[in-house]
């Protein structure tokens, strides 16, 4: 018997019993929709949490810093006091890290503190030097201005969206964190002065003296141009929001000039407290090509004698958690699909009792037993297919409804995140899988009835009632 003829015959026998077919299909529709919607909720939650992790520095980023230094006390060991050799971060290390497998990119970061002064306000800011050509990697979402261009002579900076809140009134000491009002400074247009040698600045103000008893002179104040400001207000936290960004090379040149011969704050010193010739980096940012290899890269760098940190563990525990949630939600949905499967089995059984005669006739006329079984399996599969397809459409509808409701109702999840990506999320694989699964459930439910149909005696057909 031709496959097409079997498909046609099983479809027509379903069509003959429209009402019953409809009711059975309805069960599958509800079952499929409940599974898909439940899993979509789990997926949406985990996607929302991923988006949140992304805000805290990304999921494929490894940050490399120096190992915490410690000294071995000579009075305990009896040996000469010696500092554990701490590996400093330099360009060679950046090159070495770039050689590692799965490392997409690596670039150094140099952090330093400075005092920013504008009008009657001042702020202790953290300056982060990043090579100008790597700055787009930070994914700074600029609200105004642009990123500093490489090779600009003058130091120009980009302000994180929360830096403005660091400015406080230099007379009263009050600022945003004290009274909740942002200072009246336009970071783009107002003149902002930077003092890099903060210690000397305060020493000079309070009339301190240096080693030789001379009065401390006021350090130079640099006028720093603003290239851009990151979009967002004080509420929009992300890992970049409280930094001031500038080009790494410009920052290094400036620091060298400012701290000629003395130790730059934050830089390591030799055993006897002298500055090194080079400026070492505060950290190295490593981008890994795939989330799965983050831990591996992190371990390799740790083995090299550095401290590598990432969100990998956080992500892993987060994912583990959401996997359970997805399983639990999917399980709830599965119950209704299971009920639907029983419905299919029941319908097929009924159908076989009703069609005993028909099956018998087909057998007497020479219909292959396998073909009979196949036709019944196909009927059950059709019920699954139709139910699965309609159920999937229903799920898309429900998913849209859920997402629009979530936009208006506070569910305690990070609203901005859930609103932007949606709480319910049906990826293509879930859609495809749900239909395949529905067909499979139908066929499994129809298997034993089909076996029964196959084994019916052909004698039943010619029995006269």
């Amino acid at each position, binding site marked *: 018997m031709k496959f097409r003829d079997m498909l046609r015959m099983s479809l027509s026998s379903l069509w003959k019993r429209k009402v019953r077919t409809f009711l059975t299909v309805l069960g599958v529709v509800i079952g499929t929709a409940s599974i898909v919607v439940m899993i979509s909720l789990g997926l949406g939650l985990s996607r929302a949490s991923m988006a949140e992790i992304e805000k805290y520095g990304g999921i494929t980023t490894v940050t490399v810093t120096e190992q915490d230094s410690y000294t071995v006390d000579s009075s305990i060991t009896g040996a000469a006091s010696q500092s554990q050799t701490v590996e400093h971060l330099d360009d060679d290390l950046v090159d070495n890290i770039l050689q590692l497998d799965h490392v997409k990119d690596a670039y150094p970061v140099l952090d330093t503190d400075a005092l920013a002064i504008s009008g009657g306000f001042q702020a202790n800011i953290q300056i982060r030097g990043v090579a100008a050509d790597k700055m787009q990697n930070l994914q700074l979402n600029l609200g105004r201005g642009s990123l500093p261009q490489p090779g600009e002579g003058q130091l120009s900076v980009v302000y994180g969206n929360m830096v403005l809140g660091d400015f406080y009134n230099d007379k009263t000491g009050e600022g945003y964190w004290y009274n909740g009002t942002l200072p009246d400074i336009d970071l783009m247009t107002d003149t902002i002065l930077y003092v890099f040698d903060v210690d000397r600045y305060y020493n000079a103000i309070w009339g301190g003296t240096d080693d030789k008893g001379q009065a401390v002179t006021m350090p130079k104040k640099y006028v720093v141009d603003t290239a851009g400001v990151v979009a967002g207000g004080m509420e929009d936290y992300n890992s970049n929001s409280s930094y001031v960004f500038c080009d790494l090379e410009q920052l290094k040149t400036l620091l060298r000039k400012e701290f000629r011969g003395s130790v730059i704050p934050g830089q390591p010193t030799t055993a006897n407290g002298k500055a090194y010739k080079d400026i070492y980096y505060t950290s190295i940012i490593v981008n890994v090509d795939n989330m799965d290899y983050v831990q591996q890269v992190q371990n390799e760098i740790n083995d090299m004698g550095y401290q590598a940190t990432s969100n990998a563990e956080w992500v892993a525990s987060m994912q583990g958690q959401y996997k359970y949630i997805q399983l639990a939600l999917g399980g709830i949905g599965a119950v209704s699909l299971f009920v639907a499967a029983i419905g299919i089995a029941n319908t097929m059984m009924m159908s076989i009792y009703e069609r005993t005669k028909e099956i018998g006739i087909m057998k007497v006329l*020479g219909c292959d*037993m396998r073909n009979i079984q196949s036709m019944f399996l196909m009927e059950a599969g059709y019920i699954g297919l139709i139910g699965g397809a309609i159920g999937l459409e229903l799920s898309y509808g429900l998913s849209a409804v859920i997402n629009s409701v979530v936009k208006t109702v506070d569910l305690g999840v990070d609203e901005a995140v859930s609103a932007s990506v949606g709480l319910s999320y049906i990826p293509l694989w879930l859609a495809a899988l749900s239909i395949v699964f529905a067909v499979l459930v139908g066929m499994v439910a129809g298997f034993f009835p089909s076996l029964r149909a196959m084994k019916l005696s052909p004698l039943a057909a*010619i029995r006269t009632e």
Partner: protein
Amino acid sequence: MAGKTVIRVKDLYKVYRVGDSKVKALNGVDFTIQKGEFCSIVGTSGSGKSTLLNMLAGLEKPTKGQIVIAGEHIEKKSENQLVKFRREHIGFIFQSFNLLPALSAVENVALPLTFQGMDKAKRLEKAAQVLDLVGLSKHKDHKPTQMSGGQQQRVGIARALVVNPQIIFADEPTGNLDSHTSAEVMELIRRIIHEQNQTLVMVTHDDHLAGFADRIFRISDGKIVSIEAGREQ
């Protein structure tokens, strides 16, 4: 009638176990049927005639004995092989017609060809030809419920003929028809069997209807008691 042998039945027994006692439905049956013959098996209810037909068609297994149809031993075949054998070599006419109600006349006739895996266009063409033969040219697209009993049985006959079988079995083919229609149908069967040089074995309890056949096997208590020539030769 110097045809070749289509059916050879040898020493056939069928014993049913009813509780502790044994009932011999068939008690040693021997006969042969030649190609082109129209035979009827006649007997009262419980004489074993239906059992005989069921075993000839491979729907029941004999307890003992041989059935050879077209050179093949039916009693040795598995159920799957029997289905295949029926599909290719046997036509069947039922008392209650047993047409599939969802299919039209021509589709019902084409059903055995569907089981053989024939293309749709080809099998419908062939089915239409056979329907012409039984005089139902105008009813090809009618559903069984739109046809009279006589017409339905003609569809049944066409369905049995369509595979061009070695042999056709008919179980009380006019049992559900009035006497006038019965006679018509029997005439049709006889005419077609002879025209097409087909072989047909009919089971009936009606002496008059059995008389349409070339040969009449009279069966009683599981044994063939006499073989007569038909009246209207």
